[in-house]
């Protein structure tokens, strides 16, 4: 299984490496933003905050896309049982992606001079809209790139009559990725209409397309890692995608509460986006089931750790934190504050970023032809990145709660003075956790770039814990379905506390100036949620790491019967 079955799978390597480079720079820009939050005059005039932020969000999107493309190219031949179609187009796609990244990083700087490159009524150099900062030139190249991806995927796949659910998920996913992008290609005069269509791209990408690609890829990675049956996993993928689309299509309404669109969206948005966590709970449950469908040890712990991190942070960041601010009555407070940053960072990096990293840890050692590698660096990097991101989410959430109170309840709007002064502790926590995260990223990039190139024979098998007796009690014992359910329940209890805290901003006492209740609820809810998340992942991975090693290469070794 260490061989690469299809030579064109190797084309995914360059996209994984590009992903790492972009991720590295994205983290760097994030650290710079944290520093500018503390000293707003830092690099002012040279790299203004808005430019650095545009680089940060755009590189975030591009590194996630590079990870998706890499993963799709790696699994495409396995799914289709044949080589990828048109390898030369994939090579072209890679260079186009590199060119568009460099072009876009440079054109964002023009925002400081107010040069958008207006021609034919369109901004060709940069657009100045959050998440859609790229100008038309880059937009069109990206559209061409997506079309190439669609062509390659659909030409590689078998005929539609032979598709399983994973083919359907990925096929529809890449098509929708391309179609939805088109809604961001027009300058719109009305602000409400512009926001309406901007969320077509942003919301439907994340909740309609990326999540579908995510579910399909998680499903297939589970098939690869655990030899799960493709039909069973495919059936779960079908349900996941159905739930995502049925809740997410109308769930987009939660972006239309306050942007100048009518009040009735508040009803539809509150109702349907409250259902959006359902597919995520389903996905969460399935990763538990699939990881436990046999009791074999995990051969590639970093790959599985990032996969688990992806599904768990999807649950916590997208599911629970998204749920807390999805009702019109809570969103009216969280909207436009740091509270949303907490959700955005966990959901975007957690769900999609970690998926690409998981796939890279699975695919890169295989493509370099190594059987075992030193997993310690990868595991350490996972924990640094995971705790760093949870810490960042905590800092954003606490800062955001204070911001809501000072800015909205007290009505103080001097950001350089009153507001940032009140948020100071949270603002200082951001670079602290940011540094933890960044160290993790540095390790990760180093590890994935050099796996198989640094004398691995000496460190072979290092970091793989070997035990011969299954743990029957304690932290490392088998994780049962009941226990996993209790952990999940614990997360949701804290999520409910957070929701009540946001809701309490409506109370007349709070509106009259008492911050006690919302601060108390946030002070319990956020740390509680993030600690439960941290401990759950620790527990899950410990239990897997304690699995009895049955060296596959020693087929003659006696099989150990795993005790329940």
């Amino acid at each position, binding site marked *: 299984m260490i061989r690469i079955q299809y030579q064109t799978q190797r084309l995914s390597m360059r996209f994984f490496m590009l992903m790492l480079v972009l991720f590295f720079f994205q983290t760097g820009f994030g650290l710079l933003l944290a520093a500018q939050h503390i000293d*707003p005059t830092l690099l*002012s*005039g040279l790299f*203004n*905050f*808005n430019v650095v*932020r*545009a680089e940060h969000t755009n590189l975030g999107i591009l590194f996630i896309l590079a990870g998706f493309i890499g993963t799709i190219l790696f699994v495409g031949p396995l799914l289709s049982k044949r080589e990828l179609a048109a390898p030369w187009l994939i090579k072209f796609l890679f260079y186009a992606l590199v060119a568009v990244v460099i072009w876009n990083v440079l054109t964002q700087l023009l*925002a*400081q001079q*107010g040069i958008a490159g*207006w021609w034919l009524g369109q*901004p060709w150099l940069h657009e*100045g809209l959050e998440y859609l*900062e790229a100008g038309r030139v880059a937009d069109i190249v990206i559209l061409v790139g997506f079309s190439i991806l669609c062509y390659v995927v659909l030409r590689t796949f078998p005929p539609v009559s032979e598709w399983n659910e994973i083919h359907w998920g990925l096929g529809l996913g890449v098509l929708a990725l391309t179609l939805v992008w088109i809604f961001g290609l027009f*300058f719109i*005069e*009305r*602000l*409400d209409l512009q*926001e*309406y269509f*901007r969320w077509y791209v942003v919301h439907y990408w994340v909740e309609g397309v990326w999540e579908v690609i995510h579910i399909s890829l998680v499903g297939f990675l589970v098939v690869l890692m655990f030899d799960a049956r493709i*039909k*069973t996993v*495919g*059936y779960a993928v*079908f*349900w996941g995608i*159905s739930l995502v*689309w*049925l809740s997410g299509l*109308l769930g987009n*309404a939660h972006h239309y*509460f*306050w942007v*100048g*669109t*009518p*009040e*009735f969206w508040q009803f539809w948005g509150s109702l349907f986006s409250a259902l959006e966590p359902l597919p995520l709970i389903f996905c969460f449950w399935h990763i538990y089931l699939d990881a436990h469908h046999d009791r074999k040890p995990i051969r590639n712990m970093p790959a599985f750790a990032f996969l688990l991190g992806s599904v768990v942070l999807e649950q916590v960041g997208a599911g629970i934190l998204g749920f807390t601010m999805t009702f019109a009555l809570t969103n*009216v407070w969280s*909207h*436009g*504050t740091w509270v*949303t940053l907490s959700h955005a960072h966990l959901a975007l990096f957690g769900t999609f970023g970690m998926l690409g990293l998981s796939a890279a840890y699975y695919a890169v050692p295989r493509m370099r032809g190594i059987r075992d590698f030193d997993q310690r660096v990868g595991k350490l990097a996972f924990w640094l990145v995971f705790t760093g991101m949870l810490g960042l989410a905590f800092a954003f959430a606490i800062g955001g709660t204070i911001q809501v109170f*000072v800015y*909205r*309840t007290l009505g*103080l*709007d*001097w*950001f*350089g*003075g*009153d507001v940032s*002064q009140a948020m100071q502790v949270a603002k200082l926590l951001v670079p602290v956790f940011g540094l933890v995260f960044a160290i993790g990223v540095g390790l990760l990039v180093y590890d994935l770039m050099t796996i198989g190139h640094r004398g691995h024979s000496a460190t072979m098998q290092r970091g793989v814990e070997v035990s011969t007796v299954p743990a029957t009690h304690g932290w490392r014992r088998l994780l049962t379905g009941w226990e996993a359910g209790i952990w999940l329940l614990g997360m949701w209890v804290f999520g409910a506390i957070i929701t009540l805290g946001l809701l309490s901003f409506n109370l007349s006492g709070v*509106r009259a*100036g*008492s911050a006690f209740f919302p601060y108390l609820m946030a002070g319990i809810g956020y740390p509680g949620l993030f600690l439960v998340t941290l401990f759950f992942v620790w527990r899950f991975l410990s239990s897997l790491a304690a699995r009895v090693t049955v060296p596959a290469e020693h087929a003659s070794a006696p099989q150990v019967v795993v005790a329940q």
Partner: protein
Amino acid sequence: MSCAPGEPCEEGRKRRTAIGVLGLMAVIFIVLSFASFIDSRVQAIPDAVSYTDYDAVQGKRVFQAYNCMGCHTIVGNGAYFAPDLTKTYAHVGPAWLEAFLPSAGSWPTRTAVQVQLQKPEVAQEAGVDSIQAYFDKFPAAAERVERRSAHASTMPDLPLSRDEIGGLIAFMKYTSEMDTEGWPPVPQVAGLTFPQALPMPAASAVESVSSPASGTVSAAPGNPAELGKKLALETGCTACHSADSRAGIGPGWGGLFGSDVELADGSQAHIDETYLHTAINTPDAQVAAGFNKGVMPAYANILDAEQVAAIVAYIRSLGGLEQ
């Protein structure tokens, strides 16, 4: 929702059912979307909003070109690094924005706002013509002047042109008129005086040189150029005129004194004391080529002769041919 081996899973039928339900959702979404943008729904549209000579669509292009939502938020979307701009126009009014935007790196003074209010078109947009009435109508402008006047802001100076500023104000006027369904919620307590709030202590204003309205120059320092420098800051000159030779909204002051300049009507003028006195008191009487009439307000009613002389002395101290 799992399918054990051997069970009939009927994926095809379920997939068709799911697509059917999805279609129903899509129909609901499309109907709601259509109802959101029909004309009978009264919502401000940028085509119909203008501020003096500028329209809001033009302003929206400026707003995007400078990526304003990369720091600010608009209808709550953006970067949370700086205040939401949706209702800013309604809160601070046009004269404050006119005074602030040319050099956003520092907060405008009372006089700087007053000077903008002298322009008839600005006064007309504001609906008031005295500074006191303006502050009563736009208390947020009064708060900004009182607390931050002449101090550095954390916003970078942007190279905004006169037209871009007008467009931006038009755009903010448009967003102020938008119905955003009650968002942002209106505070029910006065944060500045609320006992549990901890607003930054009111920054002590730069030592007040004089109260230009009263027209008395108190204890003029021995060096009139020093006084002029303070006055230039206090009365808003530096928002548009830099101390070096770079042109902003108006010509840079560095090296200006003693030079020859071509006027908009094609004639030549020599920049001396007389020229500068006229330029400050009645700027539209002589406009340098490349600049427009009506941009600079007349200072005749704001500054007395002694104060104008001090500012002229300051400009002279910034260098020029006759130095």
